[in-house]
């Protein structure tokens, strides 16, 4: 009975996480709020997460997108490790995006490592919403 309900759409689920040691999450919260206002379900995990914690949360929450914010400068170590763990969990179809303080010259290597989009300071939240909507399987 009622296996399909055309009026109930699939929601985009996004994990917003802060890997590493920086203690500031204003930007991550602004993004979480913007994604919520765009109709997405945002799982916010808080500060100081290890790559393992983030990959496990992404798996349990079955998210479509993992959004990572790093301000500490450790992005070249943390982000590829998270992508690796996600893939190890058979989650290679997850969209991985990053924000925070990431120098331009690091963007290409990060993309090489499997980060799909990097959004620096000054990015409008609309841009992030649109990127997710355009890239998530539906």
């Amino acid at each position, binding site marked *: 009975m*009622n296996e399909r309900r055309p009026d109930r759409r699939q929601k985009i689920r996004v994990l917003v996480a802060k890997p590493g040691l920086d203690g500031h999450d204003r930007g991550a919260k602004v993004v979480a709020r913007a994604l*919520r206002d765009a109709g997405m379900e945002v799982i916010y995990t808080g500060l100081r997460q290890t790559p393992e914690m983030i990959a496990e949360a992404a798996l349990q*929450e079955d998210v479509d997108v993992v959004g990572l914010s790093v301000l500490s400068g450790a992005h070249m170590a943390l982000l590829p490790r998270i992508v690796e763990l996600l893939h190890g969990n058979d989650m290679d179809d997850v969209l991985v995006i990053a924000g925070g303080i990431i120098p331009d010259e690091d963007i290409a290597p990060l993309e090489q490592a499997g980060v799909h989009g990097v959004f620096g300071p000054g990015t409008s939240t609309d841009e992030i919403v649109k990127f997710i909507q355009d890239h998530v399987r539906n």
Partner: protein
Amino acid sequence: MGLVEAVLSGDRRAMARLITRIENDAAGAHADLAQLYAHTGRAHIVGVTGAPGAGKSTLVNELAKAYRADSRRVGVLAVDPTSPFSGGAVLGDRIRMRDLSGDSGVFIRSMATRGSLGGLARATASAIKVLDAAGFDVIMVETVGAGQSEVEIAQTAHTVVVVEATGMGDDVQAIKAGLLEIADVFAVNKADRPGADHTVAALEMLLDLSHAVPSPAEERPSRLLEIIRGHHKPSPSAKHPPLPDEASAERISPFPGREACPAVVGARDQGVRSTWRPPVIKTIAEGGDGILDLARDIADHRRYVEDTGEMVRRNQVHLVNELERILRDGLMDRLLSQIDQASLASLMAQVATRELDPYAAAHQLLAGSQ
């Protein structure tokens, strides 16, 4: 391996996937649940409810650690509200549950209410079955930050923990109906704040009163439950019984969906006097004080419901309510599929301009769908 087999073997990715499919009403999700159903009914389902900020998530985190120390596998379903405006949600309960990360004996899933009003998501009951079938011993269900009447958890859990933060409300809050009536165990949290003893005393007084007064036999039982127990016979001659008019609407609502909670019948159900007096435990979740006492009382309550047969009654009530909810959704879907948009729009326009009242409009829609 199919999704169902994978869930039964404890595959975490499969559990997560299946819960998503249930939340989205994906094709085949009901069939998967049907296969899991025979493997459910083993877990102890513990509801944790209370006002926003009372400390529910922190308490769940601490309880889960206590259960893990006892080698029990713990599933957590944490519900947060969906925005009625955007349909989105920020689910933040994991922030307080970071201690549980990395333990393969714990599975945490955040759920958005997606329009449900009773404090849980529509898919919560099914998500419980997934975790139950996957072999978790204890499943904690954390409701949305509840007000006074988000009591759906009473129809879902075996044991309900109501978390009161110290210093919230006065004595009158404690004698109002609703949330406080569904507690099997009270946790007075943030007990290091001034006023904790006063809050405990107010709750104990409430409990003294409720034991002095005979409980009402049937408050607002499920209509299905009434029929099953033979209290109410459906009239076989009337295939489509007339809608009650407004005067009698208070007794039987033509739209049971309007009531957040048609049947809160736990211990008070069937007029059986419960001999369980909800214990009141002081806790400081931040720091873990009182958690072992709380876990002990939750376990005591489980033994109590099992030994007295209350467990069987609660399970029956849960399942009947679930069936009723599914039937209601199904009937609504069927009705909507038979109504054309133009006549619905025109009826609504008449209601909006006060030419037609909502009952008459409903009569017409129901008559037209036969």
